[in-house]
């Protein structure tokens, strides 16, 4: 700080604490709602302080019947979300790494053509081409499968673009000395490029994991089999059934479970997260 003004310091902390409280309020209400029993959650006003049923609700949500008898258990949905998020992040990183490697380190006909083809995809989010993409996936018989959930979301250039930037900053001497020592292209890729871009890969993984976990519209369209439901999309169905039989404690517990993994990733790997965010968007 530049000067010492006790009142200003006080106001600073006051505003920040208020800001944090405002941002955290929805989560607080979720947690409180997830810790009361069903009956209490039907009386207005709803409680503002935590109750004692958190563990019971957690058990009932994870392994119990959940909302209604015929629904997919929540642990299964969590698994589906995890599978989708992992396939999207690992898949996208893998194909982007090798294509960026090819574009930066090889000279071959149509190199720039390929680059522009990939680059165009930077621009269009899946939402705007949703109908025809759905048709393609249906024709390939990939509805209700993990492949259908993940591969169409891999088709975008952000990661390729980022790795290209990273590779361009690696000094040419690396390749020269590797070649003098007799290393071929794949040896160079494995032993020099990959270790050098390790933190970039980790940072991108954090961003892609959150992106994959939080997908909503796409899984909603292509999964009709309830066994393939992801946890994020299950909230919608639960809210709809809440109009007949409101079990807000279970619904809010599910919402809490759905946002917990990505929040843990952001908070636990904050440094990588910040790095990934600033690298992929710029």
């Amino acid at each position: 700080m530049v000067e010492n003004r006790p009142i200003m310091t006080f106001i600073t902390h006051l505003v920040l604490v208020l800001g944090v409280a405002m941002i955290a309020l929805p989560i607080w209400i979720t947690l409180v709602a997830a810790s009361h029993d069903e009956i209490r959650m039907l009386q207005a006003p709803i409680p503002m302080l935590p109750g004692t049923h958190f563990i019971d609700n957690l058990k009932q949500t994870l392994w119990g019947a959940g909302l209604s008898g015929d629904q997919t258990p929540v642990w299964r949905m969590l698994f589906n979300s995890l599978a989708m998020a992992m396939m999207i992040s690992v898949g996208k990183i893998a194909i982007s790494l090798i294509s960026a490697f090819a574009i930066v380190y090889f000279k071959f006909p149509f190199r720039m053509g390929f680059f522009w083809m990939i680059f165009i995809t930077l621009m269009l989010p899946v939402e705007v081409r949703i109908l025809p993409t759905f048709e393609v996936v249906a024709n390939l018989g990939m509805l209700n499968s993990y492949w259908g959930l993940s591969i169409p979301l891999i088709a975008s250039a952000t990661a390729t673009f980022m790795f290209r930037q990273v590779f361009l900053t690696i000094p040419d001497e690396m390749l020269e000395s590797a070649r003098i020592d007799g290393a071929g292209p794949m040896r160079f890729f494995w032993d020099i490029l990959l270790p050098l871009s390790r933190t970039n890969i980790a940072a991108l993984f954090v961003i892609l994991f959150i992106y994959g976990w939080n997908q909503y519209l796409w899984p909603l369209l292509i999964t009709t089999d309830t066994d393939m439901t992801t946890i994020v999309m299950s909230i919608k169905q639960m809210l709809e059934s809440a109009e007949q039989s409101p079990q807000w404690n279970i619904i809010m517990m599910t919402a809490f479970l759905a946002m917990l993994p990505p929040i843990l990733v952001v908070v636990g790997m904050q440094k990588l997260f910040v790095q990934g965010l600033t690298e992929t968007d710029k």
Partner: protein
Amino acid sequence: MLKRVHFPSSPLPYLLVAPQIIVTLVFFMWPASQALYQSLLIEDAFGLSSEFVWFENFAALADDEQYLSTFWRTAVFSSLVAFLSMSVALILAGFADRVVKGATTYRTLLIWPYAVAPVLAGALWVFMFNPTLGIFPYFLDMIGIKWNHYLNGRQAMGLVIGAAAWKQVAYNFLFYLAAMQSIPRSIIEAAAIDGAGPVRRFWTQTLPLISPTTFFLIVINVVYAFFETFGIIHVVTQGGPASSTTILVYKVFNDGFVGLDLGGSAAQSVILMVIVIVMTVVQFRYVEKKVEY
């Protein structure tokens, strides 16, 4: 673009780009071109035959009162979301930049909503504002405001804007704080020696110096409000009441999957694509050039 030192041509690079190119072709190029093609067709009600009609779908959209009002609504929605989340983030970042000890703690406590899926943000807000149970309608009732976003279009709009802005504050805060922390301390100190107080310094130094970040964030926030808020709207209002919260991307989904008007929906997709491309180009120009003073 290409390394000065590189490997000689061989089949290997083709194998390396092949997975990405195949995925791009099958799940990107082909669907996008299909959207373009379909936007020029009109299908009959049973989907049995379709007729090539050139730009009739677009002409129909231009005459469609509902579509035009959706356009206008989307503009209002996204500018309010961008304005609200950016100004809250700017204020918080301005104060967090002053904190000597514990700045990282505040950052941790403020950035996690980035990880919350839009649809979950919507679910939390719709619960807080549930007309019979929610905590806010309860308090609003005390001061004489009847809250029911299922009936009142303005309240519904306010609710989706609030949820969308709440989620985006984290992102904007992160970029604003990083921008402010990269301002050289000597500039701020010089102004302090000249007698400028904290508020004055914020307006005359910090704000102009972080303007590149502001431009960048405007584009990002508008893109966010245009596309990623689908989940919020789908879960909170489903575009209602009386389509008072239907924005462009929701209408594409609604007309295509619910209304089964494939041509019209495809034409809307094409318009959206053009908007995204324009915004991306604008963003790249700003990021490349940077607005400098």
